[in-house]
């Protein structure tokens, strides 16, 4: 069991951490932190999965081949990223050392950490029997079992045609990859581990957002997180809210979109509006739109609406037409997968 847990630790902590070093290395100094490295690494992994595995799915290649290819490539990227970008680690460490606890910050910080810990415990010890898992989790299991991707109906296991509607956003295949590499049953992985891990990732993303919204105001950053975590906890006002999805379908792409991708996208959109975009930030915006296509077909079509609208507003308010061109360049993944979707549909 320890070997499986060790492999899972490598895949969900070491790999994303290493993969995130390089993008953070080319970001502005104020963005460099261990949290940003881990978050960026996850988006790098999502984006790379989309680029590498979708061709295998469309070409109806075996799941095993996709697993081998992705494992090799993401490992290589992680090593290269760590070697080339290692200076980002030093700067992140310096930033960590320089951080001082503000007056009144500690009680709020403790309250937030306790609230998040309780939510993680809830994700582990409580269950929500979601009907859509009959598709998503069963797709992961079927991929592993039949060594195919989106060829067998997960609901009952019959052979069919390629399910293109879901195939272009392969989160279930990503979970199957994680299960294959770690040797842990997909259902346990999704319901007892990813449910906690992605909640943590979500709050880590919001923490990065808080740092941009309240620069050098640590207490306010934690106050923001306190209110946000309460908002999330009490956000189950209908089955449709992003907040409900965050707790009940954490491992599904349609939950990852509003709870991981949208907040991270807003982080870069904030930097766009503030003229704080450097090459690393643009690169991460590009990877984020790629990650949006990875999570759900909704992301393929709605991210251009969101990002495009913001670019137009910035162009008008700040009289910067160039930002529209830069934004369109970052939307290439959505445009590409959107056209592929309509072509293959």
């Amino acid at each position, binding site marked *: 069991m320890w070997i499986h847990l060790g492999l899972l630790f490598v895949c969900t902590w070491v790999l994303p951490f290493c993969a995130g070093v390089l993008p953070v290395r080319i970001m502005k100094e104020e963005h460099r932190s261990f949290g940003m490295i881990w978050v960026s690494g996850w988006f790098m992994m999502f984006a790379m999965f989309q680029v590498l595995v979708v061709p295998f799915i469309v070409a109806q290649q075996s799941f095993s081949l996709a697993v081998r290819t992705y494992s090799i490539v993401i490992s290589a990227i992680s090593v290269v990223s760590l070697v080339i970008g290692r200076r980002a680690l030093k700067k992140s460490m310096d930033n960590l050392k320089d951080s001082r606890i503000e007056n009144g910050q500690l009680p709020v910080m403790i309250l937030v950490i306790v609230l998040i810990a309780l939510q993680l415990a809830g994700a582990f*010890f*409580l*269950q*929500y*029997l979601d*009907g859509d*898992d*009959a*598709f998503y*989790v*069963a797709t992961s*299991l079927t991929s592993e*079992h039949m060594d195919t991707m989106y060829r067998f109906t997960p*609901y*009952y*296991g019959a052979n069919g045609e390629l399910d293109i509607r879901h195939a272009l956003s392969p989160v279930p295949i990503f979970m199957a990859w994680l299960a294959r590499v770690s040797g842990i*049953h997909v*259902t*346990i992985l999704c*319901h*007892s581990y990813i449910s906690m891990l992605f909640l943590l990732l979500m709050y880590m993303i919001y923490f990065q957002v808080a740092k941009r*919204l309240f620069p050098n105001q640590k207490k306010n950053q934690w*106050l*923001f*997180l306190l*209110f*946000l975590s*309460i*908002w999330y*906890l*009490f*956000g*189950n*006002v*209908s089955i*449709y809210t*992003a907040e*409900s999805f965050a707790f*009940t379908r954490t491992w599904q792409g*349609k939950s990852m*979109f*509003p709870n991981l991708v*949208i*907040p991270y996208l*807003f982080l870069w*959109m*904030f930097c766009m*509006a503030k003229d704080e975009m450097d090459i690393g930030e643009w690169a991460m915006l590009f990877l984020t739109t790629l990650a949006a296509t990875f999570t759900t077909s*909704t992301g393929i*079509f*709605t991210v251009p*609406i*969101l990002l495009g*609208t*913001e670019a137009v*507003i*910035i162009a008008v*308010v*700040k009289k910067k037409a160039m930002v529209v061109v830069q934004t369109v360049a970052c939307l290439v993944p959505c445009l590409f997968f*959107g056209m592929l979707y309509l072509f293959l549909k």
Partner: protein
Amino acid sequence: MTEVIQTTIDIYKNYIGNSMMAVLLMAAVLYLWVTEEKKEIKILFVYLTAAVGALFFFPVFAYIAMHVFLDKQVYYRIIWLVPMGMIVSYTFVKVVTQIERKRRRIVVSVFALLFLIQTGSLIYLNPMVTPRENLYHLPAEDIAVADVLHVDGRNVKAVVPAELLQFIRQYDPSIELAYGREALVDGWSSNPLFECMEANPVRSYAITDYSRQQGVEYIVLRTGTPIVGGNPIQKYQFTYLTTVENYDIYIFDDAEFAEEKKAEYASLMDEDWEENWTNTH
């Protein structure tokens, strides 16, 4: 177009429920519009929110979205493009930090949080959220049934009661089903075997005949299901195998693995077990 407008309003109402989410968001956006000095915050939290909100309710956009790139069932996801929690939380911090007296700050914070708690709905009070039964977060009876059905090294095909449909393949993908979750959703598909299985009473000839036609190797029935017909199920090439967690499992006599399975469960056979069968012929 009237239909699109009505659909959009219904989607919005279903999303928001009876909460004050939208009121809080509008109050926050208005507050930021009037007081916020940072241009980037106004762009992101005021103008962009207003633009996405306007798009959501704009009938032409809604019509195109519902008919071209999304559909009616998922149009609510446009609302996800407005990060309500982020906007309201930011505004909350702005309001609180502008209060100079510490005691007043604490009181306002507590009242704001209480308001949020009072008007929201705690996820853990959702009746669908229950203590887990195992690490799979699946009902224990589904796992017990799947363990009986499983045959090493090959797939098997079963027909199971409606409540097992969604979970059994989340545990064991080697169990194929005659029909799946789509049978539970109106209009997704229709399989006559589903109608027979969920009928009360169950007709022994109908379920065994359809099962044979569809290559089913196991029939799983709720224990005590009333069965009617000229003969009990056991007379139609499906032999009773065992009962687990209130489910009776029958095995197709001509299945390749039938004899092996029967031998495996022979020692567990309950001598007093009887099919709840009534002769109607």
